[in-house]
């Protein structure tokens, strides 16, 4: 479980807080989406979760972030990385090897995983993200989506409990983004991995995440189940977030007095709702 208590952080040489009094609890096995406009503090929150803040980004730090009761302030990010894996926004900066196999081996060897366990972890990670055929390929020749999968494979080979992703689909086309989120869902459901993803594509979050956090000016302004948060269309719009059209449609219908069981967050749900309205 992750517990963030009163976290406030200001980068060195900055005049305003990047995070302001954050309180958040994330249960084991959650699939949490974080959304907000640029400068809202999303990336800073990810950095605080994996311990990069305060260990590599100096600044004024108040409050605490605890992973299973362990304060990230007191342990190094490398010690945390067996528990918390991170996929950064700039995927190329994360790659340190030229071949896929070496990229995955790097973490395993550096964390002294026993030799007899390495092969099963390596092939298992490649299988889990569906890229066993890329094992001996040069990373420079891979597409953006394939590189994302290599980065995830390198992380899940270390079997962390928590997977952090900072705008992982920013360089992916819509179809690849969808495939990528299906993979995250699979990791979340099959391996019980806690997934925390910063994402600008609200449609993806509304379809795949179970909980949603909305940030603005370093603060959490909405936090709850996806459907619950998406009902607050006006508040989201004020935070620079446009709800998915199906959500806007459902909210508008409810405002007009149409009796609905709840909002719909996917196109399939909207279709079911529309059919019911027409035929009931």
């Amino acid at each position, binding site marked *: 479980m992750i517990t963030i208590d009163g976290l406030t952080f200001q980068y060195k040489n900055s005049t305003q807080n990047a995070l302001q009094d954050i309180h958040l609890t994330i249960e084991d096995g959650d699939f949490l989406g974080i959304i907000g406009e640029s400068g809202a503090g999303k990336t800073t929150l990810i950095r605080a979760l994996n311990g990069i803040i305060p260990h590599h980004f100096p600044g*004024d*730090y108040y409050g605490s972030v605890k992973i299973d009761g362990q304060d990230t*302030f007191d342990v190094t990010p490398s010690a945390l990385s067996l528990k918390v894996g991170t996929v950064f926004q700039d995927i190329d900066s994360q790659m340190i090897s030229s071949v896929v196999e070496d990229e995955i081996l790097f973490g395993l060897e550096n964390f002294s995983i026993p030799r007899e366990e390495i092969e099963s972890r390596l092939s298992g990670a490649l299988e889990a993200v569906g890229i066993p055929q890329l094992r001996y390929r040069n990373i420079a020749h891979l597409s953006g989506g394939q590189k994302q999968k290599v980065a995830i494979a390198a992380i899940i080979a270390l079997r962390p409990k928590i997977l952090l992703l900072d705008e992982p689909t920013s360089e992916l086309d819509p179809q690849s983004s969808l495939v990528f989120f299906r993979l995250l869902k699979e990791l979340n459901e099959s391996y019980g991995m806690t997934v925390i993803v910063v994402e600008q594509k609200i449609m993806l979050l509304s379809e795949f995440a179970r909980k949603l956090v909305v940030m603005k000016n370093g603060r959490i302004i909405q936090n709850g189940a996806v459907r619950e948060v998406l009902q607050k269309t006006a508040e989201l719009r004020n935070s620079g977030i446009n709800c998915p059209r199906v959500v806007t449609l459902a909210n508008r219908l409810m405002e007009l007095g149409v009796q609905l069981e709840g909002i719909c967050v996917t196109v399939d749900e909207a279709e079911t709702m529309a059919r019911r309205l027409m035929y009931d």
Partner: protein
Amino acid sequence: MEKQVIAQKRELKVEQKNGIKVRDLILVGVLLAAGAVLKAFAGSIINIGGVKPNFVIAMYCLGILLVKPKIYESAAIGLLAGAICQFLPGTPWLNFPSELIGAVVMGSMIHLVIKIGKVNFTPAVATFVSTVISGSVFVSCLFLFLNAEKSALMAYIPIVLGTAAINTVIVQLLYIPLKLTLKQE
């Protein structure tokens, strides 16, 4: 009335490590490598009446100015520079004592403040003195250990002084932009 809890600012415990930092070591290594390459190639192109710059000395002077090491660390940088010189054309072994002493002199002079108006001339003065001393040690060793012709002594004086002058210009010119690039205070 609701009680307001104000969180305490938290400070990381900074472990004081002895010795030169990895970042500084890399910087010195890169500068010495650049000095070796420049000495091997550009050194023979820039030749003013037989006087050539000694880029290895210039680069360790620059490195010591930027990194501000302790005296024994400066000595290690000097020995490293002497070792690099063994791979370049020249008289073997003599660069070990000459660069060692040159680097120690540089390391002991970097904290001096030599200013004219607002301009800091410490890099220039320290480099000039270090190069002259390094050159003097080199020439002394030449006469002491390799029995060089005594009549050649006079010929070395302008070469040492000329090299020191060129090194002084190189270091003074490179110091400020490099310092700004590395964002050192």
